């Protein structure tokens, strides 16, 4: 997938995240990983599409400005 540097990228709040894994198959570039009970978003792969944000059942994902 061709990647244009996005203005915003997804970040996870691990204090809220329930590790349910729902967001993994929603991510077009497969930038979200769940390993050893920690969810991570690969900010080099995230395209800023926001597809993971609204479906999170507990609101653990949000978009932030890409530094």
């Amino acid at each position, binding site marked *: 997938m061709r990647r244009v540097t996005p203005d915003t990228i997804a970040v996870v709040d691990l204090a809220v995240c*329930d590790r*349910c*894994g*729902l*967001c*993994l*198959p*929603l*991510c*077009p570039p*497969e930038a979200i990983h*769940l*390993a*050893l009970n920690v969810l991570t978003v690969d900010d080099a792969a995230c395209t800023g599409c926001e*597809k993971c944000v*609204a*479906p*999170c*059942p*507990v*609101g653990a994902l949000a978009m932030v400005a890409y530094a």
Partner: protein
Amino acid sequence: MPDVDVLVVGAGPAGAVAAWHAKLAAPGLDVVLLERDRAIGAPVRCAEGVGDAGLREFANPDGADWAARKITKVIFQAPDDTEVVVAERGVGWILDRTRFDAHLAAEAVAAGAQVLVGAEATGMSRNGRGDDRWYVRVKERGQDTVYRARVVIGADGVETMVGRWAGLDTRVPSRDMESCAQYVLQGIDCDPDAIYLQFSEAIAPGGYAWIFPKAIGVANVGLGLVALKTDGRNARQYLDAWVARRFPNAARTGYTVGGVIVHTTIKKTYADGVLVAGDAAHMINPLSGGGITNAMKAGRLAGRTAAAAICAGDTSERRLSAYHQAWMELLGDDHLKYYRIKQALESVDDAFFDKLARTVNRIPQEKRSIGRIFTHALIKHPQLIPVAARFFV
């Protein structure tokens, strides 16, 4: 380096049955079943409902400690709370998944499989150079071990890392993901022999809300929704609003959240030395969101296919594609039909469901079978004809 024939990743219903049936098919094979969590069956991410006939292919629920309630009634609730009771003998069961999953894993062990809990697969790769085995990295008690396996069965649920590592496309469009939240409520007044399903855009847009009894006065109370259709609140917030209205005085003694993929089976469920089964392969009934029986049926096919392939000395994707074909014939093609109904139902609104409930209630309760309701609904509500047509096309 531990050398195994079949390595199953994930000890839910798909994985446990896969390990069990791989051993039954070929007792001489080394079969290892990995569970990431420290207890099989926990944490529960499930409403725990299952149909009677499908369950009995794998386990006898009569008097079993893992069967919480026998269900003999389905109560549909329209958006305006009009109830439609459909009673059928032996509809299904509400399981205790912490015990049920452990029971299935014990069946796998009794057949000779080895089960490891607290053991997480963290990646896998192949060597090339004529070596067709997979090297799977497993983290267990802080130690990394590499397992060498002839066939890896990915039964790792919605996140489906094994499928990803094998290069399969396991992604799902947003409209086909149900975001779910559920409480265990105690001290509630509901029929302990019935499951309740409520359809309403205000309560659970794009999905439904459920009450599944686990004991008298105790139930799994949850909902699933499609985020694209919401007003911006998340599933837990929708659930809080519904529970506050329906059960303001109940004790919330547990909660869970998770995703249910209401999609069709992934295009390819196999690769060289890899099979994926259950939620990991999107093998959930896209209309009901039910996945336990499907997962067990797929696990049985995967276990048998893997065992036969290893015994034949050919674990290539060409050989393993027999699994995909068998699954599509068994249930995959039906899921395509259910998916079409789901799409068609997306166009009907709350007012329609309210009217439909009143229509069905004119049929005497003892004569209410799903078939009769369907026929009656079609006559009274011609808007449903395109829905029915899409089912059969």
